[in-house]
């Protein structure tokens, strides 16, 4: 516990301290902002997939809802920051809708239905004659020229978007802390109970459906938050975010880092976002390399990078390792054995 809290504070401080150097490298800032945003998505999709064990294939929906709502509000004169917050709540709403699904189906059927519903959603918003409530999706064109955040009197995109960078850190740390608290609370225990032994958990009086609803609400909220943040940052959003290629990206992050681990998604984001950016000019080869990398990870280390690291350390905590290293140095230097 102490070790993780140290990480949670050391990491952002370390990132913050990079700023003086970062100011000269706009590309680095840009990449870091993306990493932070995708880490948030990764945290909460991982929670749903790995901790609660729901094979949900539609995380793109709350992402889209959060993003489009934020964009829509910004385009209509509202403060984009308000847009992001409102978007998150609407995203949570979409998560609630999916939670109803989880009461009906589990396992494979959950995977199938969530996927098909997401594809349906994609179909629905791409058309030109969409029903009124979906108007904010503006059909296939998506939203463009979304205004910038101007809190504090200046346009945030100035200076390579450093202001977004700080906002990103804030959101990242906030969501990480919230996740940690949630997983350490009785909810975290309930999540695992639902994942591993649903019937038994129900017999113990754990409201299974309630737990699933909360899991969906929370994860969708934060995924939508990140969606809104990225939409405002990119200043545009389109229906392509609902495609399966995006799902592959979300999946990749979770799988690379390690399903069910805490920091896995962050590691996944740190590897995949720069990789994605680096490979973009290569067109189809990018997807090829991507697919190959995921295949490799799933076959060789399905427990992900963090999972594999934990595996290699054989469950010994870092503190324990340091402790035994100290003991070794003591004996090696000839001082007292204990």
């Amino acid at each position, binding site marked *: 516990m102490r070790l993780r809290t140290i990480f949670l504070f050391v990491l952002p401080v370390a990132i913050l301290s990079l700023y003086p150097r970062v100011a000269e490298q706009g590309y680095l800032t840009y990449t870091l902002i993306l990493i932070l945003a995708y880490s948030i998505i990764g945290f909460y999709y991982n929670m749903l*997939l790995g901790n609660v064990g729901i*094979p949900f*294939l539609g995380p793109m929906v709350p992402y889209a809802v959060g993003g489009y709502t934020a964009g829509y509000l910004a385009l209509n004169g509202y403060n984009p920051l308000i847009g992001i917050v409102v978007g998150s709540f609407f995203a949570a709403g979409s998560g609630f809708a999916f939670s109803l*699904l989880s009461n*009906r*189906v*589990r*396992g*494979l*059927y959950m*995977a*199938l*239905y969530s*996927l*098909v*519903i997401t*594809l*349906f959603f994609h*179909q*629905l918003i791409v*058309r030109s*004659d969409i029903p009124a409530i979906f108007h904010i999706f503006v059909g296939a064109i998506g939203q463009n020229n979304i205004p910038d955040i101007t809190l504090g009197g200046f346009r945030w995109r100035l200076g390579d978007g450093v202001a977004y960078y700080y906002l990103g850190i804030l959101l990242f740390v906030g969501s990480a802390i919230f996740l940690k608290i949630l997983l350490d609370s009785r909810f975290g225990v309930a999540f695992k109970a639902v994942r591993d032994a649903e019937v038994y958990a129900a017999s113990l009086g754990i409201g299974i459906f309630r737990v699933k609803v909360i899991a969906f609400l929370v994860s969708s909220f934060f995924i939508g938050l990140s969606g809104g943040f990225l939409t405002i940052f990119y200043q545009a959003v389109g229906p392509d975010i609902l495609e*399966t*290629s995006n*799902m*592959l990206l979300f*999946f*990749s992050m979770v*799988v690379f880092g390690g*399903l069910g681990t805490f920091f896995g998604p962050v590691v996944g984001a740190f590897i995949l976002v720069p990789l994605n950016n680096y490979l973009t000019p290569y*067109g*189809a*080869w*990018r*997807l*090829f390399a*991507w*697919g*190959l990398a*995921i*295949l490799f990870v*799933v*076959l060789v280390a*399905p427990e992900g990078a963090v999972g594999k690291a934990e595996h290699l350390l054989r469950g010994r905590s870092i503190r324990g390792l340091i402790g035994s290293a100290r003991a070794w140095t003591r004996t090696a230097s000839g001082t007292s054995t204990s």
Partner: protein
Amino acid sequence: MVETALLLPPLLSAIILGSLYALMAMGLTLIYSTIRILNFAHGAFFMAGAYIVWWLNTPESATRLFGTMIPVSGLQLPLFVAVIPAVIIIFGAGVVTQKALILPLIRKPNTLITTLVATLALATILESVATVIFGGGRFSYAQELVVGNVRLGELIVTYVEIIQFAVAIGVLLALYLFLKKSRIGIGMRAVAQDLDAASLCGINTQTVYLLTFGIGAALAALAGFLLTNIIFLSPSVGATPLTIAFIVVVFGGIGSVPGTVIASYVVALVQQYVTLLLDPSWGLSFAFILMIAVLIIRPRGLFGFKET
């Protein structure tokens, strides 16, 4: 009273399309009922089969239209000949996929999600390879399979449609007989119904898995060939058929062969009549709506088994 003349063509189309959907979805159902995984690369096998036929069939002169070098074999095999090696190759690809990808994952935890991710990754790889080799352009086969059509009263049916229907139905019937009567077919059904008991009867479950995946992939490839006679071929052509296959198995109950067949025709009927009454673009959406209705009323589909 709506004119019967208006009602019949969609019915006819639905019968033909339904057969093709059944062919496509059958592969998914077989793989799920026997191996218990969801094959996301099914659409990619569809696409790959169609491309192999294209590669074997298209004359070199046709590729100059595209400007860049697009490889063709130059063999110019007639379509109905080219389909044979294509199906065989994709069968082999299915067997290799099962052995290299799925088998290692079945033994480890979280099989549903890992195989999903692995097959999705495979689909991405296949699609990107197709894009690299053939470019992102939309192709057609250089000739029509058969030219001409036939009049049935007030309806016109093209020979291509007849062949599509005949081949799809023929293959499905052959598959039915194979599963019902042949030694391997019985073995496949046994493995699908009780894995341990099947082993104890002397059935080599590993071999059954390999064959099942191969057959599933081959069915997709055949469906790819048949459909490419009427739609454009591109690296992402497999996406919509895969989606339709998903809807079909959800509706019919994944793992049920009769359910898949019936659901295919129902989905095709819904699509065709919605297209008639509303707009072609709503056809697929209504199929989705149908699926949501299924979700509410009977989540496991018409003939599906309860999730254990």
